[in-house]
C-alpha cells in the first residue's frame, strides 16, 4: 500500500484579478517573478526542499501557461514513480458537476487523489506567495503539539493587521480566537494561508461541509474545526514572506531583489529555488550599454541603459533605450530610444522606438483605481505599442494597439486601453 506521511495541495486556480492585465491570460501563480521564476516556483521548491515529493496542484483559471510550466515536474525533481506532481483541474462527474467554487471545495473535489496516498498530514498551500519555508519544521511543531490543525502565521504591523485573517493565541500558541479581516485587530499574528491538517480532521470537515456554498478554508473550514474543539495551533514564522497579490506589492517584491544584499536572497546555495529553464544562452551587454543595480535573465541582450530594474530572459533592450525602476518579463522587446519609468511589462510585449512610459503627473485611474495605482504603468502580455507614443502614470495597456488608440499620440495618466484578455 502506498503511504506518504505528508502530501501538499497547492491552490493555483485563482485569477488574481488585483494584478489587472498581468493575469488577463494567465493564472496568478504562473506570473513571472524575479527575472527568471514564476510565482509557483517558490511553494514548489519549498516542497521539494522540505522533502515533500507528492504535490497536487489545483488549477482552474487560465491554466495553459501553468500546465506547460509544471509539465511532469522535472525542474523540481517532482517526476516520481510514486507521487510527484499532479495537476488537478475540475472535472465532470455523473451528477452535480461543478467548477471549484472555493478553496476548500477544490480540495473536497479531490478527496480521492489524497486518499490514494494514505497521508497522515495534508499541507495546504497557495500559489501566490514569495517565501522560503521548511514545512518539515512546521510539521514537527504540529506533531509536538499533538495538533489537529497548524496555521502558519507571521507578525505584521498592527496598522496593517485588518487586511489579514488574524489569530489570537494563548501562551502555548494554541489558537483561542480567529478573526477574518477585523476592524479592530486584537493581535498582529496574520495567517499566511499555509495550513497543516491531520488528514482525518481535514477529511471529516470537508465531508461535513460539502454542501456549503463556496466552501473556503478561512471562512468555513477553520471556523468549523474551531467550533468543534479541534486543537488549532499557530506556527509563528519570522522569515521573508510576501503576498504579491497587488501590482504595487508585486513591484516592491521584485525591487527588493536588487538590493546589495537582498533580504530575500536567491544567491544562497542553501534552499535553492528551481524553475523550468526556458532560455539557456548567456546574456550580452553591448559596448554602449550601462547597467546599474539590476538583475538580468539569461539570453537577454542589452544595448541601452538599465537602472534599478528586474529584466527577464530573452529580452532585447535596443540602443538608446533607458529603463528605470521597472520589471520587464521574458521575450519582450524594447525599441530604440524608448524611455521607461516605473513600468511592469509582461511577456512577449513589443514596444516601438521612442515610446515613453510613465510620463507626467499621477492621476487616478479612470476605471480601476484600486488596481492601477502607485504611479505604475502596466502592460499585459503580447501587447504591442506603436513607435513614438507617450503613456502616463497609473495606466494599463493590453493587446495589440495602434496609433489610432492614442489620440494625439498619448495615453494620459489614469488611462486604460484593453484590447485583449479575459478581464476586458
Amino acid at each position, binding site marked *: 500500500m502506498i503511504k506518504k506521511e505528508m502530501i501538499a495541495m497547492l491552490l493555483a486556480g485563482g485569477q488574481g484579478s488585483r494584478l489587472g492585465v498581468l493575469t488577463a491570460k494567465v493564472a496568478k501563480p504562473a506570473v513571472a517573478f524575479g527575472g*527568471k521564476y514564476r510565482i509557483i516556483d517558490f511553494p514548489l521548491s519549498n516542497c521539494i526542499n522540505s522533502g515533500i515529493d507528492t504535490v497536487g496542484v489545483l488549477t482552474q483559471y487560465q491554466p495553459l501557461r501553468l500546465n506547460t510550466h509544471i509539465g511532469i515536474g522535472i525542474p523540481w525533481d517532482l517526476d516520481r514513480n510514486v507521487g510527484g506532481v499532479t495537476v488537478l483541474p475540475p472535472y465532470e462527474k455523473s451528477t452535480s458537476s461543478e467548477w471549484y467554487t472555493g478553496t476548500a471545495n477544490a480540495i473536497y473535489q479531490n478527496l480521492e487523489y489524497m486518499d490514494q496516498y494514505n497521508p497522515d498530514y495534508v499541507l495546504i498551500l497557495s500559489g501566490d506567495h514569495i517565501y522560503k519555508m521548511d514545512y518539515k519544521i512546521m510539521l514537527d511543531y504540529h506533531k509536538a503539539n499533538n495538533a489537529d490543525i497548524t496555521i502558519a502565521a507571521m507578525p505584521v504591523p498592527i496598522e496593517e493587521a485588518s487586511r489579514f485573517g488574524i489569530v489570537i493565541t494563548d501562551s502555548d500558541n494554541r489558537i483561542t480566537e480567529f478573526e477574518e479581516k477585523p476592524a479592530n485587530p486584537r493581535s498582529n499574528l496574520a495567517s499566511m494561508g499555509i495550513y497543516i491538517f491531520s488528514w482525518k480532521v481535514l477529511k471529516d470537515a470537508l465531508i461535513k461541509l460539502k454542501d456549503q456554498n463556496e466552501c473556503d478554508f478561512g471562512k468555513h473550514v477553520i471556523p468549523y474545526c474551531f467550533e468543534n474543539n479541534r486543537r488549532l495551533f499557530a506556527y509563528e514564522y519570522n522569515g521573508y514572506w510576501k503576498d504579491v497579490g497587488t501590482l504595487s506589492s508585486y513591484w516592491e517584491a521584485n525591487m527588493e531583489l536588487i538590493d546589495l544584499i537582498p533580504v530575500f536572497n536567491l544567491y544562497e546555495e542553501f534552499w*535553492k529555488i528551481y524553475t523550468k529553464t526556458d532560455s539557456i*544562452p548567456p546574456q550580452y551587454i553591448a559596448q554602449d550599454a550601462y547597467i546599474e543595480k539590476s538583475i538580468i535573465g539569461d539570453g537577454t541582450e542589452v544595448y541601452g541603459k538599465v537602472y534599478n530594474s528586474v529584466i527577464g530572459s530573452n529580452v532585447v533592450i535596443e540602443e538608446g533605450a533607458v529603463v528605470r525602476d521597472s520589471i520587464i518579463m521574458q521575450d519582450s522587446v524594447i525599441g530604440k530610444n524608448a524611455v521607461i519609468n516605473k513600468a511592469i511589462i509582461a511577456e512577449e510585449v513589443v514596444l516601438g522606438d521612442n515610446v515613453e512610459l510613465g510620463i507626467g503627473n499621477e492621476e487616478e485611474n479612470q476605471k480601476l483605481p484600486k488596481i492601477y495605482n502607485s504611479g505604475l504603468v502596466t502592460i499585459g502580455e503580447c501587447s504591442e505599442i506603436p513607435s513614438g507614443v507617450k503613456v502616463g502614470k497609473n495606466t494599463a495597456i493590453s493587446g495589440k494597439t495602434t496609433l489610432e488608440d492614442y489620440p494625439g499620440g498619448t495615453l494620459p495618466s489614469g488611462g486604460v486601453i484593453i484590447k485583449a484578455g479575459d478581464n476586458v
Partner: protein
Amino acid sequence: MKAIGIILAGGNNKMMRELSNKRAIAAMPVAGSYRSIDFSLSNMTNSKIQRVAVITQYNARSLNEHLSSSKWWDFGRKQGGLFVFTPTITADSSYWYRGTADSLYQNLHFLKNSHEPYVVIASGDGVYKLDYNKVLEYHIEKKADITMVVKKMDDRSEINRYGVVSMTEEGRITEIDEKPLETNLSTVSTGIYIIRRRLLIELIEKAAEEDRHDFVRDILMRYKNIKKIYGYKLQTYWSNISTVEAYYKTNMDFLDRNVRNYFFKEYPDIYTKVDDMPPAKYNCGSNVKNSLISSGCIINGTVEGSVLFKKVYIGNNSVVKNSIILNDAYIGDNSYIENCIIESGSTIKANSKYVGEFGPQIVTENNPVYY
C-alpha cells in the same frame, strides 16, 4: 534517423596547457553557458539520432558529471539513449584506448548491437551547428563509403594542427595529410564522419587484427584509394577549441551579434545541463561593456570585452578586460585582469593584477574566501 552517433571525447592535448589539468577538452566550458560537447550532442538530438555513445578516457570526472543525466539532450528514451564508454578491463583486453580506432574496437558491441544502417562519428571539441541528415543525403547521393565533413579555413595560421585534405571537383578526397609540418592545402577535416555501420565494423576489426589503432592514419589514410571517401563542405560556423588560442578566440567570437544569433536565436537550439542559477546581478559600481554574462554572476566592478561563465563574482573596483572567467571564479576587490583565462573555481585575492602579455594567460589561484 537511420544512424547512431559516436562522440569521441577521450582526448587531451598539450596545447590546452593548464586548462586540461582539470578536464577533458570535450568538457571545456564554452560561450558562457555551455560545454564543448553540448554542440555535438545537440546536433545529434536535433538530427533525430536517438542512440549516442560518448567515448571518454582522459580525466572524465567533469565530463561524467555533465553527462550524469541524459535528459537535457532528450536522450532519456526507451528507444535509444546516451551511453558513456570509459575503458574497462575485460577478459579480452586490459588496455586503455590506444587510439580512436581502438576505442571503437573496444566498444564494438555497441556497433554490433545497433540496427541502424549508418554511423555518425563526431568529436567533442567542435563548436558548430549541423544537421547530419544533410550529410547523410550527400553520402547516399555520392554513393560514398565514407563521408568526411570538411571546412575550408581562411585563416591558415594553425593549419598544421588539423588533418588536411585535397578534393576533386565532385568531392572525392584524394589526399589526406594528418597534422602536416608544411602544406599548401587549406581544407581541413572537422573530425565528423558518416560511414555505413557494417563497413565500419569491418574496417575496425581489420585494423585491430593488424594491431593498428588510429582511425585517421590507419583507416582513412590507408584506404583512401580503395574506398570512396567524399568530403562534405561545411559552409557555416565551425571552430575547434583544442588549443588555448583557439579556445580564447572561439569564446570571443560569441561577442559578435551574428554568431550569437546563429547559435542562440536560430532554430534549433543548443542544449546543456541546467543548473538552476538565479539571474545575473549588477550592483552599484558595475560597468559592463561588450561582454557575455551568465546566470548566477554578481558584478560590482568593470567588465569589458569578456566572457563570464556561471556564478562568477567580480569585486568592487575590479577591472576585467578581454578575459575569460570560468565557472565559479571569485575576483576580489581592486583587482586588474587583462587578457587572461581564469580557471574555474579560482579565488583571486583583492588587489591582484594579472595581465597576459603574450596571448591569453591561464590563471589558477585558490585562496580561501571568507564571505
